């Protein structure tokens, strides 16, 4: 197995996801199949190959540092599950 049930729980925590104990074995099996398939990449020798993060050659995109209009507060808050008219509201943190 490439990924254990414990690792699935750990990764879920990092991803801020929660799975029931019944879901974990099946998820682990699915992830294992995918990771085993993906492992075929190790057949390729990539020593000295540069990684590609951007497919089309580009240099930095600069723009003038000018103040422009931003989203008005009421529009930014319009989709909030909870707000107080000025901020997003979440359960008390401290």
């Amino acid at each position, binding site marked *: 197995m490439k990924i254990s049930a414990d690792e699935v729980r750990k990764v879920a925590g990092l991803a801020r996801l929660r799975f029931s104990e019944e879901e974990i074995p099946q998820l682990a099996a699915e992830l294992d199949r995918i990771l085993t*398939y993906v492992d075929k990449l190790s057949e390729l020798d990539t020593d000295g190959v540069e990684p590609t993060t951007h497919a089309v050659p580009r240099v930095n995109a600069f723009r003038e540092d000018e103040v422009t209009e931003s989203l008005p507060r009421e529009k930014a808050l319009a989709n909030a599950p909870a707000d107080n008219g000025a901020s997003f509201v979440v359960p008390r943190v401290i």
Partner: protein
Amino acid sequence: MNISDLTMVSARGLLDRGEVSSVELTRAFLDRIGAVEERVRAYITVDRDAALAQAAAADRRIAEGNAGPLTGIPISLKDVLCTEGMQTTAGSRILEGFVPPYDATVTARLKEAGAVILGKAAMDEFAMGSSSETCAFGAPRNPWDLERICGGSSGGSAAAVAACECLASIGSDTGGSIRQPASHCGIVGLKPTYGRVSRFGLLAYASSLDQLGPMTRDVADCALLLSVMSGHDPRDSTSVDEPVPDYGAALGRGVKGMRIGLPAEYFSAGLDPEVEEIVRRAAARLEEAGAELVEVSLPHTDYAVAAYYIIAPAEASSNLSRYDGVRFGFRAADPADLLELYLESRSQGFGAEVKRRIMIGTYALSAGYYDAYYLKGLKVRTLVARDFTNAFEKCDILLSPVAPTPAWKIGEKISDPLSMYLSDILTIPANLAGVPGISVPAGLTAAGLPVGVQLQAPHFREQDLIACARAVEETAGMAGRLPELD
């Protein structure tokens, strides 16, 4: 007026000559939606009143002599593009009821050109899928056979165009999500070069692969829509500041002297014999029309899916972290604390496939696995991109199937994620390399299912795709062919 005979180009003529008003045209499409939508389920949202108001405004603009290229033309948008004032869900419960406070750049450009937006098309949740079955609001059906998938992830867009529920649609393509459903539904779908079209306001799946493109009845409409969508946008730093050619001018260019490469790896084992026959016949017809066929090789094709299923989920795991139940979207009821709010909102809001890809991506990026998975994937991406550079030294266009098989039955692959992933083997490489690709209808199988031909070109050579696709269209006898839904 029979809306099944119309294209955007022909509708433009009718509108400009005053033979039909945009309100009449829009009403005809809304009636059609009313008649077939229960069977096709192509839309998540249809906004009748907003569409008719836009149509009335379009009629005024036409009367004033100020018509833009799309003024009065009814279209749909994949529900992944932000539309100010109209719900945008990305096919996910986590965004149910989300009404964007702004338009995506592409939405704004289409509105400026005068398009009437009928509604938002169904899609795989967050564009993650190849069949549109992961859509949280019901899977759209293939209008050619309602028991079959319409492809994905832009399946609702393809089904809506094929079922005549709009004149055209906009899709997004991260690993084939425009081209594959276009092939399965018998329409034209083009994924532009990465950076050709702004991604601002496109709900991100994998930012280095995502690209928006037209899904249309024919190649001329595709050229028209691409011209409207393309161009630099300061709000997307990856959009490219290159001049936009007149894509319509390429339509009559023909293929004489064009070198068309047939990549051996795209015709390998696992390819459905009927699909192969239709695609090879299309190639032979281009040769008769004056093109030169050459054998080429893209030796790393077989590794593209593996690289994609590291890179795309890795980017997705980062992009989708914004759905946390705080600023927009679904929030779970009565969370005990902030961590519970995150965990429960995300776990209840996302569907199974989205969670699976977030998990793969988080794993591939986590400490100890980054080099083995993510960095390795990026290096193989380089090898896949080099294959294209090498192949394009020998040819101008690559011709191949879009998908190894015609549309499969609903439910057939949904419980086997890996077999679903592998069905995208012929479309994923273009996203990794950033090259443009188009699917154009080339024939029907014995069972009456459409099969598309895929054409791929070097970066920013969309005009060559248009020229070649038009030649396929002219010789394949599929132009204007629509499914018999009635």
